[in-house]
């Protein structure tokens, strides 16, 4: 099994390496003439009137939290889906209960308006 993951490691390294080479090529071959206007953050032609670090709606964080929970659910579903033949009806029913409990949570989200984007 380990032998199969070595190519992935090499591939990841090649991917990063390629990006480094391209970036280095761009930095070397391109001109470098900075000036204050060019280096200022883009803002539709006006000078920026406030710092770009603004506070954001908490809703974005709620989406991220809900995502973690659903991601875990997927992690539970993956091994289940490939052993359906061996675990039989018992295993399928077990997952049915698991999903039903979580769908109750999903309905709660829905009814509470956590999925609304105002």
């Amino acid at each position, binding site marked *: 099994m380990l032998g199969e993951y070595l190519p992935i490691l090499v*591939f990841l390294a*090649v*991917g990063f390496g390629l990006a480094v080479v391209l970036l280095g090529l761009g930095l070397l071959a391109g001109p470098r003439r900075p000036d204050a206007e060019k280096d200022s953050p883009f803002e539709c032609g006006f000078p920026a009137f406030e710092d770009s670090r603004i506070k954001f709606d908490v809703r974005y964080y709620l989406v991220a939290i809900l995502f973690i929970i659903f991601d875990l659910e*997927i992690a539970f579903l993956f091994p289940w889906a490939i052993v359906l033949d061996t675990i039989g009806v018992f295993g*399928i029913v077990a997952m049915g209960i698991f999903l039903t409990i979580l769908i109750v949570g999903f309905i709660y989200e829905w009814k509470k308006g956590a999925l609304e984007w105002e």
Partner: protein
Amino acid sequence: MMEILANFFGAFLPEWMVTLLIILIKVVAIVLPLILLVAYATYAERKIIGFMQVRVGPNRVGFKGLLQPFADMFKLIFKEIVIPARSNRFLFLIAPLLAMGPAFAAWAVIPFSDGMVLADVNAGLLFLLALTSLGVYGVIIAGWASNSKYAQLSALRIGAQMVSYEIAMGFALVGVLMASGSLNLGDIVRAQSGSIFSWFVWPLFGLFLVYFISGVAETNRAPFDVAEGESEIVAGFHVEYSGMAFSIFFLAEYANMWLIAALTSLMFLGGWLSPFQGLTFLTDMPVLGRVFGDGIHWLLLKASFFMLLFFWFRATFPRYRYDQIMRLGWKILIPITLVWIFAEGLAIALGWKPWL
């Protein structure tokens, strides 16, 4: 051929170096065609959308503009990489790398034809899901490091959008796994062999649609491209990027599009399997049999079809509003996949397997 190379290098190099070298050669053999595909995807996109809008598209460089991608590349290399004054220089330059790494490494587990795969891992699909979830970092870090309002807004939008569609995508994958019984992509394709009617697209049609739509959203392509919405936040997370730094994001985006296209073909349309499978009078023909038989050309053809869909969507659909995107992801796609998984589980519990 690899044995000849192994013997050749084995004469003067230690064994582990030979192994690494062979892998490196294989990786390059995947990466170079991939870059070429990406380059010509940009050309094809401009040509196709041009035709759809009754224009000619690029036609100056080379015959019918065929050298346009190279012209673009050389132009971008000689452009200045502007690093904004108040940005975080280190993270600003690292972000493109983080976008590129996962977009390319995912190709390691893609089977191009029967047995033609670099890393034949057991948990191939899980690996792909894990890698695609890393793609969001390049964007978030790029958006934050730029220290620009537009970039930051875009990073936040894209972050929430990508994670939302990843759920629908993951659930759709579960449906495929239930039908194939394996996480290995090669096995998933082999489970679809038989005839065109054994492809998973028929019993799992809903999941197929959900998967491809989520794929479009995941790559931030139109109509889900609020992250770059040029009319509101100019170019989104890469507004401050120029020259090669920008083109790396571009490269990663197109590599991801090809990835989604290839995965959709592998999981739902039988990958390298020929649609004429089972029709022996066609596949047994002396020369044409190779064309009608299974092979990498079918995967390329199917993936190209999905690329065409990507471009077609861009030319056809107006951009979704952000609240509509979130609604589609959470309130439509996720319920569809959940219902589908339940139905599939019920069918299996009753011993009825439509895909066999």
